[in-house]
């Protein structure tokens, strides 16, 4: 499997570290922290995920991946996505 890193191009998945769902945002209210830390949707279909290009440019990416077909539709810098 390969991930199209915006800086480095198409690279083998072994260069990356997977974190998880890119959806949840760190809450401003203490009450929402439990959900932020522990609760996740288990999507059968397209997900946006956080991957870290550990063996490359060391940028965090948001990768759009289909959990059923494993097809990776694209990857963008996480920094851009959250702004």
């Amino acid at each position, binding site marked *: *499997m*390969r991930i199209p890193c915006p800086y480095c191009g198409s690279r083998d*998945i072994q260069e990356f*570290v997977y*974190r998880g769902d890119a959806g949840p945002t*760190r809450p401003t209210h*203490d009450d929402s*922290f*439990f959900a*932020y*830390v*522990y609760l996740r949707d288990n999507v059968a279909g397209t997900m946006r995920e*956080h991957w*870290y290009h*550990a063996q490359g440019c*060391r*940028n*965090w990416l948001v990768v759009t991946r289909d959990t059923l*077909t*494993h*097809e*990776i539709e694209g990857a963008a*810098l*996480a*920094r851009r996505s*959250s*702004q």
Partner: protein
Amino acid sequence: MRGQTHRLATGGLIDRARPLSFTFDGKAYTGFAGDTLASALLANNVPLVGRSFKYHRPRGILTAGSEEPNALVTLRSGAHAEPNSRATVIPLFDGLAATSQNRWPSLAFDVLALNQLASPIFVAGFYYKTFMWPAAFWEKVYEPLIRRAAGLGALSMLPDPDHYDRSHAFCDLLVIGAGPAGLAAARAAGRAGLRVIIADEDERFGGRLLAERHKVDGMDGPAWADAAAVELATFPNVTSLPRTIVFGAYDGGEYGAVERVSDHLASSLPGQPRQRLWKIVARHTLLASGAIERPIVFGGNDRPGVMMASAVTAYINRFAVAPGKRALVFTTSDSGWSAAEDLVAAGCDVAAVVDARGSPPPAAERLRRAGIRIFEQAAVANVAGRRTRAATIIDSSGRAHTVAVDLVAMAGGWNPSIGIGSNLGCRPSWSDSANAFLLDTPPRGMTPAGAAAGALSLADALASGIAAAVKAGSEMGVTIAAEAPAAEAEPASTSPPHPVRGRPGKAFVDFQNDVTAKDIDLAASEGFTSVEHLKRYTTLGMATDQGKTSQVNGHAVLAAATGKTIAEAGTILSRPPYLPVAIGVLAGHHRGRHFRPERRTASHEWAEEQGATFVDAGQWKRAQWFARPGDRDWSDTVAREVNATRGGVGICDVSTLGKIDVHGRDAGLLLDRLYVNTFSTLAIGKARYGLMLREDGFVLDDGTTTRFAEDRFFVTTTTVNAARVMQHIDFARQVLWPELDVQATSVTEQWSTYAVAGPRSRMLLQKLLPAVDLSNENFPYMGAAEFEWMGAPARLFRLSFSGELAYEISAPASFGDRLVRALFEAGSAFDVTPYGTEALGVMRIEKGHAAGNELNGQTTARDLGMARMMSQKKDFIGRVMANRPALLDPARPSLVGIRPKAPDARLRAGAHLLPEGVRPVADHDQGFVTSVAFSPVLGHWIGLALLAGGPGRYGETIVAHDPVRGSDVAVEICNPVFVDPEGTRLRG
């Protein structure tokens, strides 16, 4: 040719000028270059090659390809021995030695054939139904007995002496299979300039063209194939991989393949790998892997002498071997008639051709005129003989005829080899027009072509290959010439699987796992009606051949038994590897010492000179201790190093700890959000201990962070968490707070750092650095400074892990060797001692410092006695969840020290803590011992532990219970800081 009684006088693709000698079960035979072991055995009229898995029935060669279920032999001997090698794909070499398997004492007389008498018990699922009582017998009695009785070849149990290589390749078009469709497609794509990789498991390209008699573009099949292969070799954009099996399809257009580099030689050349693993990334793939002929299910179809019709064709045409003298052909497809004509052309006696259908192809007329008996709408009910002797034919009116034959060729239709097409979950579906399962929804980027797509006639296969190449090319914006090579459109109709039921005799479906048609009926009657359940319950298709000759026939029998159509019954998904793959080739060069990369610090060579013993810390090699004459054992060495350091000065390489530069206007602010304590207030030239949490409130890591400027911080981590913390910092600044002006980079490998510890450490360093004022007033505890050493930037930190007066000195890693030698030179006047990780560990335990054993991912800051470090004035990662009620519970296991009540008792890490006098069960468990050491300072063992309500229980006696190593030690709970609890030595 003496002994080769079944070798034809002329013809074949073998090289009669190169005779080869080989042995099978110790007997000597000859063959020719170009033979396989199977063709050479057949030439020498060796009927028996193995015994079946369960019933130990005598078995002969069934096929001429890698789908072979019967002819499994052990090739070579000793460490090079390879069991379960299929004789049909072993190229013959001079001196080849092979032995049969799964028989005792010999192939001819196998005692375990007695299993057959008990065959009514050994039906499908019998393991689940018998051997159930008593339960204890399963592990000790039944399973070992079954294992010994069942099984195929045996491993040599010696280390694998071969080398294995790895290659990574990228291409526009991967062509799997170099038969007519694959060759035509690869050649057209290569001519158009695409980057092509073409792979075939055979030694020569050509596929069925090597086995059958065809003309392509006016040339003989093999000649056309050779010419295409030669042309492909001239293209720099084409990589040809014969002897290469593509074994699996993976996500993202990736394929795994094994190239058998030197398996066909008697032994590898020096330095030559035995096999090479290819990881191929292809933009587009053609699955031109051909089709495998289906056996027919009838009584006695497993007897030596019953063979696939396509195999008979291959042995006659490619190897010039007649597999029998008097043959019967039983067919449900047009292709079976070609085998009959090949037999006639080879001079074999054809006793009869039996076609289950009513409308045979034109060949029938030719054979009828040649005087051969033809039976239409008929079937073979049974084959008799330990070695095929006679066959019983049931004609269209139901009358039985028995014919004496020594060869029965069966042609049950064709199964496209689409196995790897279903690796990614695309389930094939039944096609009534092809009478086979087809991959009609292949994975993206893959196109079946040729017989693999159901195009069975040669002309259709060639056209299909070209069409697939054109389509692939257009998807990549390249125009490929659409002209297909010319060949005849021979008759190629087939019928669905046609089991012959209702007759006595065992009718085999899976030859390798000995699954009969009756077993399938039984499974269906017991409710295992899905093809996936049938497979697991009967073990149909689960042998090393993965059901290549049995799966579809099994589906047909199941469909009939459950009243479904075969389309409704469906088929299973295939899982890689398509053919057996040696573990060694997957490991490649990553074996033994090279299993993982080895990371060394700059002082490694120096440490080796000093006689260091090394230990693995992750991928790092760290000096564990430095033995000296007079040390009786390692514990003497470690005690000496601790005493020398605490009493004088010791030096330890601490370069492996993680180091991260955090720079920027908001660097301090970021660190405030990462650590539980505050760093934005840290003065320049000062270091501070920090604790980092995960967002769930548990401790992630600890370290000391130093401020060198308003906007420059230097963070350290533990050795094992260096990468994890770097990732954590990058996540915080890129994803959580991208608005902060801060950058971070790992500098773990850029700096060499040495701890210089002990009362004489200041003197040593002052001698090395006369220009730096190391007085206590100018360089207090937790101070830090940057300066130059030997023209390179250097740093000095006054930090102490040992609890003594201590420093850490850093220089760029390229100066690391020079620095350590300079330190020891300066230290010679002070009797400096090198110390390793063991002494480092003893000293930190004596000081009650938490390390990896305590930062185990399950402890909180509070558990470790660091609750007061958590700032109340700022947000930080983990703040909210660390304050969950359960994590504030004082009954949680918390850090304490333990010392044995009996002064000479030994403590062991991992022991659990229970109150005195209670039964040692989980209900009474109150914690466990995390770290232990023999303290040279105190003269007895000490330990750190996590104990429920720990800090409030100093003075209490408790039991350290170790059932694994069989000891119970009474211990006293105490302060974890065993040595210099006031910390006076640090601050001197």
